[in-house]
């Protein structure tokens, strides 16, 4: 029980930190976002009235009292109402709406790719660790080298090879918009989604599989010299049982806890990947927001990403407690 309480407290603190960070950044940075925006609007010839200024100020959270504590209070209240402000890019759509449209794409792409990468990497790592000195051992430097390659460079090379030089895959988009497909749970739509999502997913998987494989293989090598493996072999258990229930079950634990850490990196990589493939997810949205100086959207996205990563971490932490019975005892 104490363990779960500790975890909960931690995540509440982390959430508070993310939220407060989100609040502080625009206020600590040089320059007034409202002024910057007004200047931009003026430069493009848009009419700027005092009302525009006032509503923009409110939308960007600058309106109302100048006391930061009061503003903070308003900000928190707004958050609870799901009010993240108004987007400039899609004016006057609310930030919440805009994000809600893009989020499922990213979760689908990133979630799936990371899972595939994790499972494949761990699986290959188990094999490589079990059969030391085999050809699998040579695969490891290769996959690790893929990790040293910048996501987007790899993505662009893939784009060059597979979409322009040979038109095997489409090079932009989340689904076949021009083919008249309507989003829905139809096989056509889903098929199109998979087709369009394949290359971005491939990029993510290729770039991250090396890490899982290496970590798992190293851990397998360590674990295989443990006493309980000797006991298992002496008991005459079948090799696959020794490999899975005795070795891999123990060896996967650090990778599992590391999965949570890697989520942050995956989000980072996905931002760039989505931009390269024009994939309609959160990453691309952030990119658009940055280009348009859409501060409200930017901060909204940062908050959503933070909360998602925190949630994912929490889920992984709880799962970890389930698969390692010693965790609850340790706290």
């Amino acid at each position, binding site marked *: 029980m104490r363990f779960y309480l500790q975890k909960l407290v931690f995540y509440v603190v982390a959430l508070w930190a993310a939220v407060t960070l989100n609040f502080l950044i625009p206020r600590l940075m040089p320059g007034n976002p409202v002024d910057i925006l007004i200047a931009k609007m003026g430069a493009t010839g848009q009419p700027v009235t005092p009302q525009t200024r006032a509503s923009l100020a409110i939308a960007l959270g600058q309106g109302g009292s100048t006391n930061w504590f009061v503003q903070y209070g308003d900000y928190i209240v707004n958050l609870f109402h799901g009010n993240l402000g108004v987007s400039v890019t899609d004016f006057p759509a609310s930030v919440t709406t805009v994000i809600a449209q893009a989020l499922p794409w990213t979760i689908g792409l990133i979630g799936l790719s990371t899972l595939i990468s994790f499972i494949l990497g761990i699986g290959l790592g188990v094999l490589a660790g079990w059969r030391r000195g085999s050809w699998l051992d040579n695969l490891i430097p290769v996959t690790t080298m893929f990790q040293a390659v910048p996501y987007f460079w790899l993505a662009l090379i893939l784009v060059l090879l597979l979409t322009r030089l040979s038109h095997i895959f489409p090079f932009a988009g989340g689904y076949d918009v021009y083919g008249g497909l309507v989003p829905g749970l139809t096989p056509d739509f889903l098929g199109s989604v998979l087709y369009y999502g394949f290359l971005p997913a491939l990029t993510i998987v290729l770039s991250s599989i090396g890490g899982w494989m290496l970590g798992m293989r190293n851990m397998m090598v360590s674990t295989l010299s*443990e*006493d*309980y493996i*000797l*006991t*298992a*072999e*002496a*008991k*005459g*258990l*079948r090799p696959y*049982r020794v490999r899975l*229930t*005795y070795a891999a*079950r*123990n060896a996967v*634990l650090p990778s599992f806890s590391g999965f949570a850490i890697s989520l942050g990196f995956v989000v980072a990589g996905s931002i760039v990947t989505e931009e390269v493939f024009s994939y309609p997810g959160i990453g691309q949205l952030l990119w658009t927001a940055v280009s348009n100086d859409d501060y409200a959207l930017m901060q909204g996205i940062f908050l959503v990403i933070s909360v998602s990563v925190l949630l994912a971490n929490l889920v992984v932490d709880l799962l970890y407690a389930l*698969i*390692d*019975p*010693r965790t609850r*005892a340790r706290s």
Partner: protein
Amino acid sequence: MRPSEQWASATPRYLADPVITVDNLSIDYMGETTTHAVRDVSFTLGRGEIFGLAGESGCGKSTLAYGITRLLKPPALITSGSATFHSREGFSIDMSQLRGEDLRAFRWDKISLVFQGAMNSLNPVINIQAQIEDIFTTHRPEMGKRARVLKCGDLLERVGVDRSRLRSFPHELSGGMRQRVMIAMAMALDPQVMIMDEPTTALDVVVQREILDEITRLRADLGFAVIFITHDLPLLLEISDRIAVMKAGQIVEMDTAYDLYTHPQNDYTKRLLASFPSLTGDRGDFIRTGVADLQLTETAQEATE
């Protein structure tokens, strides 16, 4: 008549009814320089006998045991000799020739092991029941689930652990309990030989005594032979029928426990026996057989003068 005297009459029983015969076994550790861990070792283990294997750390006793049961890991390699198992059903198997599926089926069924430091000999992420059960699912697939669980509970109770501990994880048990669980697992398939590698070294003396009593009681009930490996010679003197003393990979002396204690032939054996302090006798007496350590008594005498 002392049991050991029973052994000494006519054809020794261990020769008449052997369960393991080791013939000129040599084991090397390969590497840039080859280490000869076990050199030309031969001995016979009688059915139901408690055979002690004594020696200091690094003398090769564990390597010998692992070599016999084919648990050696590279770079260790059996370079010559053989170890033969004589089953009570009448057939004999050359253990060094066993491969693959045959080896796997042989393991634990005929010979089981109890390792030292059960701290780490149990899988930390699955519970006790699962660890005992998988012996049955592997070797006795015809057993039903309920029969298996019942048998697991029986095994635990036999070694003095409550049946309710089946659902516990290894980290929730004390050291002594874990060692008992190891012994319970070793008995699961009613083996003909149990090899115990320092089973009580990591435990405190009270628990040690309990475990030893447990082992001798079980042996009396079930009749398996025991190879007991330890550096603790006095312990062996108490419980073994015969003892072999190893040094640098070779057996330097092998005799019944009583004869080894009273008439040690080899110098090394004498030194070993001399290294354990005595509870009785004069202060500074290091040898139980009553022969004082001349050097020490002389120093004591000088001090009092």
